[in-house]
């Protein structure tokens, strides 16, 4: 027991004190530590402390050949593993100059977009749960479970996929996957209205997210914010549209934006993106070209000397791979641009002045994945 006689009056009467939110906190979904300096209930300063789930993915790259690194990218951002896997394959293909068959590009887009929907369900519904609404979370996970089943059907894993290969994908999609995706899209379309009714008009939800945690356009630029967090601030930037890669230029889709920049805007952008992703998948399934799913690529790639940077839109923003090759089979250096890393740092700018309870809302609305920040 603490000997309270040793605590002097100055300590008891102090106004400003520090509070540890995390590292084990339910709302931080991951091992994230926020060190808050509070004046009463108002945040004066916030310092995110990261690195609890650092596994050294960038160092690992220097100790193995390009093919052996294929399972790693999905383990960085475990919620959008397929997209990271796709991005890594694109980076090595760019370095080696490998052409990818069109069917493979389409399959990559379909799987990436399915993964984006799954990830956005966590982002939005986990945010709603952070604000005290349990039902949307369970509904979202129900839909997400269908996607995981679909992706397991073709890639063999539920979360940390290594489905992509240099020059294509591991195997062609099956009839069950094709029909299952169609069925899933129909089911999801019919449920959008339910989500709208369930949470979007809820008074508590609106009051806790409207005009909370406003990120201005200027802050977004200075801090390098990307993804739905940026689009919630009214900047129309999406790597899929602005810097098209893979088969994305062939599909019609919108970039949803909101100009408010608050938590509600970020939530709405994610919900609107679900619909756009569904549209992309539907178009890709309609026009799925025949042909091979993997180009003829040597068993072990040996990129020429040089470097390249490839960016792609993960569920959290513009991620990227910067690869330096020295002409051998082992990468000389791989740097990963983690969108959550930049998105998280903006908290230090926007959080001061908010109540402690709002920090949970702001943190949830930015939707970071901790293993991606730590890598």
């Amino acid at each position, binding site marked *: 027991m603490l000997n309270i006689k040793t605590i002097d009056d100055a300590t008891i009467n102090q106004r400003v004190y520090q509070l540890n939110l995390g590292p084990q906190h339910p709302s931080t979904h991951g091992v994230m530590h926020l060190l808050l300096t509070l004046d009463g209930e108002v945040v004066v300063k916030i310092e995110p402390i990261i690195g609890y789930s650092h596994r050294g993915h960038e160092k690992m790259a220097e100790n193995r050949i390009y093919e052996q690194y294929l399972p790693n990218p999905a383990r960085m951002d475990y919620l959008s593993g397929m997209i990271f896997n796709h991005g890594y394959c694109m980076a090595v293909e760019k370095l080696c100059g490998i052409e990818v068959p069109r069917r493979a590009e389409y399959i990559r887009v379909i799987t990436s977009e399915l993964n984006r929907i799954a990830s956005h369900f966590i982002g939005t519904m986990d945010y709603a749960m952070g604000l005290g609404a349990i039902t949307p979370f369970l509904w979202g996970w129900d839909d997400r479970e269908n996607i995981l089943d679909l992706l397991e059907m073709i890639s063999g894993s539920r979360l940390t996929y290594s489905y992509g290969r240099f020059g294509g994908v591991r195997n062609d999609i099956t009839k069950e996957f094709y029909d299952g995706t169609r069925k899933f899209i129909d089911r999801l379309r019919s449920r959008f209205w339910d989500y709208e009714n369930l949470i979007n008009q809820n008074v508590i939800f609106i009051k806790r997210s409207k005009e909370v945690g406003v990120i201005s356009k200027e802050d977004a630029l*200075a*801090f390098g914010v990307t993804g739905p967090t940026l689009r919630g601030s009214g900047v129309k930037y999406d790597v899929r549209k602005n810097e098209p890669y893979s088969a994305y230029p062939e599909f019609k889709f919108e970039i949803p934006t909101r100009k408010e920049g608050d938590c509600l805007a970020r939530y709405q952008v994610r919900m609107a993106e679900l619909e756009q992703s569904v549209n992309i998948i539907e178009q890709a399934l309609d026009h799925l070209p025949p042909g091979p799913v993997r180009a003829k690529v040597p068993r072990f790639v040996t990129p020429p000397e040089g470097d390249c940077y490839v960016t792609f839109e993960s569920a959290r923003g513009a991620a990227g791979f910067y690869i330096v090759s020295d002409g051998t089979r082992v990468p000389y250096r791989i740097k990963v641009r983690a969108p959550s*890393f930049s998105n998280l740092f903006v908290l230090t700018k926007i959080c001061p002045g908010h109540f402690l309870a709002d920090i949970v809302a702001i943190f949830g609305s930015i939707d970071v994945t901790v293993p991606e920040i730590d890598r």
Partner: protein
Amino acid sequence: MLTAGQKKLLVELKSSLAEAVPEGQISESDYAKKGYHLEVRLDKGGLRRVAQTMLDKRFMLETVTAVDFIDSFELVYLYATYYHQYCRVLTRIRIAKDAQPYSVSAIYPAAIWLEREVYDFFGIRFQEHPDLKRIINPDDADYFPLLKNFGKTKFTDQIDDILC
């Protein structure tokens, strides 16, 4: 293929960069192969002048990284834009192993964390950085993990022979 807007932006960028850093070598690179449009070599300094120029042109600091070339470091700053047609500028600077480059965090707050990460993994100490300490590795770590002499195993040298 570059669009007309991109070409115009590149010409503008080149002239304003040449004005800001006359000693730097600015060259256009093949976007299809490299993933960036403009490469700026700054072996004689000028990191902060480039950063100021890029901020005036409304570019964001995409990432900061370093590469360990055994006898020297190469610092890489990537700038990208989301206001114009897409355009990416890569800035390289070769520095000695014990050099202390100036931080750009006064211009781009994003660099505070990105440069802390570079310090954490490579041991490059940035001057005029507001908060230079460990970020991902433990506070009491006495190693810099991404240096080439760290974590080298017997396996590392033989990896090519074992697998192929």
